[in-house]
């Protein structure tokens, strides 16, 4: 019992640290990627290639003056950012990152807790998250914020339906609600994953589209449409309270990406068997990255890059060496595949933000109710008929 509590506390601290760092750097990655899409360098001044920019942003946000506008509904105004972050953090508790890991003779899962209703738990937490935005918009006593809050609650209710229906069909295929067992049922390579082996490609696309809307990302970022609503629901928020909404958005992005990886892409399952070479994939990727960095370090575009690129090249080569070490391979490889899958979806989030314009409000609603919802419904019906037919 004591060992369990200690291990859980360690896991809690580790996951919280990694997650919050990842969220901070996700924002750096987003700025960099969008900058390169728009052919400009992006953050460049703080640290090599702006790598310390997230730290600078955090310091800026903490030290900014915390304005309290007059005539706001004080309790709800203070409560809203809290609930947004709390609900975003809550869902991470049930997400598994990999199989069991053995530390000092004690076996434990790379997951905080496995509920047998894990998927429903995440849906519940995300459906509560809408209050953060809706109440923030209302409590701010500002017409733009109110419009943003209204839009977000309407949008979230609408897109929750196709999202839940899209989640239901892989659950039918895997026949479980526990995220850990869900991954277990998809083991055995890319042909067994729900997106291909389960025939859930339609559900996967519907899920990703609805997830974009649920996280208020472009092209569904109507709640904070800056050219019509100033900043939408968080117009009146400053300092850490604004940072809370920002964090909640990125945390939700991480959660839905992990969900997509777990439900459709086989979680931490390698695309093909490790014996047939998939265990060398991370090393090969890191070696290529390391050699590229070393080459650019030898021919630096800027003076400083001679040191930074060389350093990063060496770091990548060390990582490549770690990945072939047989002791850590058993848990590092699954972790790599899981992070890679979630990372690809996260990259798609950023990529689409850099390329697509925003929906008009009536298009947004029409798309959810007249297209996405019937498609998800039809997919669920076909899936259940097929399962009933063959089972």
């Amino acid at each position: 019992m004591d060992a369990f509590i200690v291990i859980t506390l360690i896991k809690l601290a580790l996951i919280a640290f990694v997650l919050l760092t990842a969220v901070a750097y996700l924002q750096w990655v987003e700025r960099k990627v969008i900058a390169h899409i728009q052919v400009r360098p992006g953050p460049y001044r703080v640290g090599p290639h702006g790598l310390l920019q997230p730290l600078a942003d955090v310091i800026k946000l903490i030290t900014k003056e915390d304005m309290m506008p007059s005539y706001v509904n004080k309790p709800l105004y203070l409560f809203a950012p809290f609930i947004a972050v709390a609900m975003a953090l809550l869902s991470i508790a049930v997400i598994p990152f990999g199989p069991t890991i053995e530390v000092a003779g004690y076996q434990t899962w790379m997951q905080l807790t496995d509920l047998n209703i894990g998927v429903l738990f995440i849906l519940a937490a995300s459906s509560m998250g809408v209050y953060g935005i809706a109440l923030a918009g209302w409590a701010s006593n500002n017409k733009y914020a109110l419009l943003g809050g209204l839009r977000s609650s309407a949008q979230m209710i609408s897109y929750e339906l196709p999202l839940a229906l899209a989640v239901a069909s892989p659950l039918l295929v895997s026949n479980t609600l526990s995220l850990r067992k869900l991954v277990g049922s998809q083991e055995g390579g890319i042909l067994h994953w729900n997106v291909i082996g389960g025939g859930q490609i339609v559900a996967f696309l519907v899920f990703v589209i609805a997830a974009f809307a649920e996280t208020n990302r472009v092209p569904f970022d109507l709640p904070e449409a800056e050219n019509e609503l100033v900043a939408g629901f968080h117009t009146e928020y400053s300092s850490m309270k604004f940072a809370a909404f920002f964090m909640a958005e990125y945390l939700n992005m991480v959660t839905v990406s992990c969900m997509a990886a777990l439900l459709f892409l086989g979680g931490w399952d390698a695309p093909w068997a490790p014996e047939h070479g998939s265990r060398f994939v991370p090393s090969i990727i890191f070696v290529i990255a390391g050699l590229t960095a070393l080459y650019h370090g030898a021919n630096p575009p800027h003076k400083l890059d001679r040191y930074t690129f060389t350093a990063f090249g060496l770091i990548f080569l060390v990582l490549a060496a770690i990945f072939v070490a047989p002791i850590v391979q058993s848990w590092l490889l699954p972790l790599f595949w899981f992070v890679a899958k979630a990372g690809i979806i996260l990259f798609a989030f950023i990529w689409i933000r850099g390329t697509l314009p925003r929906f008009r409000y009536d298009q947004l609603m029409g798309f959810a109710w007249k297209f996405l919802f019937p498609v998800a419904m039809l997919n669920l019906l076909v899936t259940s008929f097929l399962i009933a037919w063959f089972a």
Partner: protein
Amino acid sequence: MDIFLFLLFAIIAVVAAINVVVQTHPISSAVSLIGVMGSLAVLYLLLGAEFLAAAQVIVYAGAIMVLFVFVIMLLNAGAEAKRGRSLMVQLLGVPLLVALLGLLAYFVQRLFPQGVTVHFGGFTGGTAEAVGRALFTSYVLPFEVTSLLILIAIIGAIVLARKELD
């Protein structure tokens, strides 16, 4: 631990429920109602009904209350003005409340004389599988009747909305 969590969330539920009535602003009442539903979900969870707890949060706290909040925000309902209570409320309110609670306690005692206590973790039929099986075997008629009722309500809503449009 169980009894501590039960007491904590039972108290939150009752306080939030009273707060629903006491608050003058509809949004504050709605938020309190969300609190009631959330703590009820925790109570279900403590009793071993995991699926019901998740459904409670998703359906009631997550969907129905969002609609409530949405409508309140859309209509921009203001705080209701406090009026002086009538003489009858002042005289009879508290005694009637006490009488009602007493009657309730009396009937509970009468109906369940043995007083079987609930054991936390004693109930294991709360998984999604168990609920689904119960719904489609023993309770299939009430289930179908309820879905028919909801269908009628949906059609009614569409008919009423169309009348407005024409």
